């Protein structure tokens, strides 16, 4: 297999997703199959090819650093799972 159960555990940790033992088995199998499939890319003739991250031919799109109107606080806070006045409430950051 292209990927081991320990790799899946590590990746889930990096991605901040808690996974069950059952999911570990399933994802090890699924990701293994997909990674085996994409192995075919090794045969692609990419010597000297410059990698592309996007294909729009645009580069370095910048805007002036000016202050513009942003969304109103109250409106944005309406979607907060927990809040306290003007603040979003979260668990303690420092113990």
């Amino acid at each position, binding site marked *: 297999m292209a990927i081991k159960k320990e790799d899946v555990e590590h990746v889930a940790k990096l*991605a901040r*997703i808690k996974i069950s033992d059952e999911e570990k088995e399933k994802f090890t199998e*699924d990701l293994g199959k997909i990674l085996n499939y*994409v192995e075919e890319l090794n045969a692609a003739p990419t010597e000297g090819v410059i990698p592309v991250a996007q294909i729009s031919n645009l580069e370095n799109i910048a805007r002036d650093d000016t202050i513009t109107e942003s969304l109103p606080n109250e409106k944005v806070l309406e979607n*907060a799972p927990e809040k306290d006045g003007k603040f979003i409430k979260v*668990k303690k950051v420092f113990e």
Partner: protein
Amino acid sequence: MTIKEASEKLKSGEINSVELTEQYLDKIRELNPKINAYITVLDDIAMKMAKASDKRRKNGEVLSEIDGIPIAIKDNMAMDGTKTTAGSKILENFISPYDATVISKLKNAGAVILGKTNMDEFAMGSSTETSYFGPTKNPADIERVPGGSSGGSAAAVAADMCVAAIGSDTGGSIRQPASLCGVVGFKPTYGMVSRYGLFAMASSLDQIGPMTKNSEDAEILFNIIAGYDEKDSTSVNQKSEIRNQKNIRIGVPKEYFAEGLDPEVKKIIEQAIESYKKLGAEIKEISLPNQKYALSTYYILMPVEVASNLARFDGIKYGYRAGAENLIDTYFNTRAEGFGEEAKRRIMLGTYASSAGYVDQYYNKAQKVRALIKKDFDEAFKEIDFIMGPVSPTTAFKIGEKTDDPLTMYLSDIYTISVNLAGLPAISIPAGKIDKLPVGLHIIGPQFSDNNIIELARQQDGIQGASIS
């Protein structure tokens, strides 16, 4: 009813927008329990928009050809004050605080927005089965999938639960459901339609486009939603070129007719291409040698972008938050409970393929192959004007048939994915049926040939059941 038909009825006074909108809301109430095309129906908002449209018409202030016409929107586009779920539990109760540019443009054109359509979770799927809100059914056969991820929009158009709809396409998500439901689905050139307010899946591939009952309607909607937008840094300030459509040369890639293509689908596609020959086109076999790597390239690049884009869903500022003892477990639990299986699979795959030690082997390699795939198209378009082939290797499959094996599901997009990797415009138009199941013809053009593709597609409007009312 098509946009053209509805707009003529509104113009002649045969019907007003309130009546038309009521008619569609009734239709949704009747059919949605069976088809599940809509996640949210915006009854009150739609009626308000319809009333405002009728008032404008009375005052001689009609805004556009779609003023007063009921349209559906895929539920991954933000609409101020309404729910936008992206088909996910993690956004089940999320209310958008602003309008996506596409929504602003539709509102400015006077459209009536009926509701938000069902989709695979965060647009990740080819069948609408990964939606937290249950699968959408194909109106042609409710035991089958409508395709995905814009399956709700496709089914809503096919079942006439809206006049037209908007979808989004990252690897085929407009064209494949259009093909499977027998409607027209157009994916514009990357950058032609602003992505501002579209919930990002894979930013370098995502593009918004129309899903309609014929190609004429696709052109009307495309012309309204396209255009440069400074809020999207990948938006291009360029108009689609209109070129002379005489003596066109159509390339048929031999790779699109190789193993894996259903023989009956193949027959219909060959007949459809042949019909263009009768219209005077020159048909030529071509080769896209790196097409065979498209699926693998996509299943590296897309998940890497997904892993990055979906990192924002952490239960802090908005969306679902799971109970936890401490901050780090808030993240772990929220994402475990909030995301479905396919979303998790792609986040983990993307995290792996871009992690230290593997980034060269996977991500950087795939970026190089992407360049090769684009080059294949660039070379091909020196010899020919358009490419034609199938959209999907098969007709609509049964619900549940491919959910156990992700790779089998991924193969549904084998012909559509390379178009996104190269940023090209492409359309799916109805080409025929096998029993009662629709088959779509794929027309691909060079960058910025958007209006030309639609013009070419329009030659099929009204032929081979290519038009539904």
